[in-house]
């Protein structure tokens, strides 16, 4: 206790309280944003499920390799669409995704399309080539952007610039657990199911054309879904990080308060001793 004056401790408590206020506020902002992101992710789900169902149906009832999107490739020129945040202070949220992608692209002629300011910085500093597609910041990417991006990706894939396209995002498992995840979007993995003998469906103008028109929509859907999941995960990760920061601050404040009180007590005791000693002498 010696060496630190009560004044110094008081200053540290004040600064701790200020920090605690900030982390608490960030936690609350993150939780309210989390609720919105969760609702958005939930609203989008039936859409993809329906699209996916139709795609599976068409693929299952048609001959093999009728679409360029189903062709199996070697995967020598993969492209990773990496979705992470614009800002830090969210625990390991950004780093977890980066590490996962980094382990996959090592030694490959891979391209990375970064979404989010942090992602752009990370992959630019490691000289990983990115296709020339301009995108807004993570928080500003809209569904329209996803569909535009999807059309561009499908074009690059059809032209053979990339022979596989993956999406790396953070899966929102629950408020407490977010897992980074890589998923293949192109080529589509052929469904295992054999040709079904169900009712005949009329595809207009033709099943191939329906399939090839729906694929870009579906890919756009996956991108948007990944974006929603990642957003929800980011807010959840930030909320958790800020929650523990607030708890740490609380702990430190109570520790410092104890020290402050002890120091104050010691000073008073000393003063009394001095007074008594002085009184005896006179």
């Amino acid at each position, binding site marked *: 206790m010696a060496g630190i004056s009560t004044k110094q401790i008081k200053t540290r408590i004040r600064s701790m309280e200020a920090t605690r206020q900030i982390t608490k506020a960030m936690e609350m902002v993150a939780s309210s944003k989390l609720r919105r992101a969760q609702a958005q992710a939930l609203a989008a789900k039936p*859409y993809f499920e329906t699209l996916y169902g139709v795609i599976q149906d068409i693929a299952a009832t048609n001959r093999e390799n009728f679409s360029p999107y189903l062709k199996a490739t070697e995967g020598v020129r993969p492209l990773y669409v990496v979705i992470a945040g614009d800002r830090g202070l969210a625990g390991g949220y950004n780093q977890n995704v980066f590490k996962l992608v980094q382990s996959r692209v090592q030694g490959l002629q891979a391209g990375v399309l970064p979404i989010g300011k942090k992602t752009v910085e990370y992959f630019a500093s490691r000289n990983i080539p990115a296709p020339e597609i301009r995108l807004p910041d993570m928080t500003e990417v809209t*569904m329209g952007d996803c569909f535009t991006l999807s059309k561009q990706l499908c074009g690059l894939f059809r032209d053979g610039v990339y022979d596989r396209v993956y999406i790396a995002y953070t899966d929102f498992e629950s408020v407490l657990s977010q897992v980074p995840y890589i998923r293949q979007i192109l080529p589509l993995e052929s469904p295992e199911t054999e040709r079904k003998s169900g009712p005949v*469906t009329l595809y*207009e103008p033709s099943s191939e054309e329906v399939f090839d028109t729906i694929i870009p*929509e579906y890919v756009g859907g996956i991108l948007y879904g990944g974006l929603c999941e990642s957003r929800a995960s980011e807010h959840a990760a930030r909320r958790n990080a800020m929650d523990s920061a607030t708890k740490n601050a609380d702990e430190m404040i109570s520790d410092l308060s104890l020290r402050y009180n002890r120091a104050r007590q010691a000073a008073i005791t000393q003063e009394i001793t001095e007074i008594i000693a002085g009184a005896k002498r006179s």
Partner: protein
Amino acid sequence: MAEFALKIVTPDGLRYEGTAEKLVVRTTAGDVAILPGHIHYVAPLGMGESVVTAAGKKRYGACIGGMVSVANGNVTLVPASFEWAEDIDLERARRSQERAEATLGNADTTDTERKLADARLKRARIRQHVARHKPK
């Protein structure tokens, strides 16, 4: 009158769930009207006005992209974007049209930008066209 089950699902959420007597949508091959008892059917959607007739009343919507499917008499409309006439932000559509026209009029625009602007212009026109049914 005969009815069928209709569901309109967009990435933004459910826009309609219930029964309808008739659905008119614009597919990539042109306008299609779906009535009860339709065979199994799947078609990709273009951009255009969509009309849902339910309980004798017509409702208009701006329907963009996606597809329509009929399975076992259930009709599912899965557009990339769907707005009922009353939900359309006319001011926004007008601004979008102006922006698109400016981009198209600019000599420096690249091909991709031109394509995007063209699509934006079409969407804006459809929204404005559908918005005329907006209750005043």
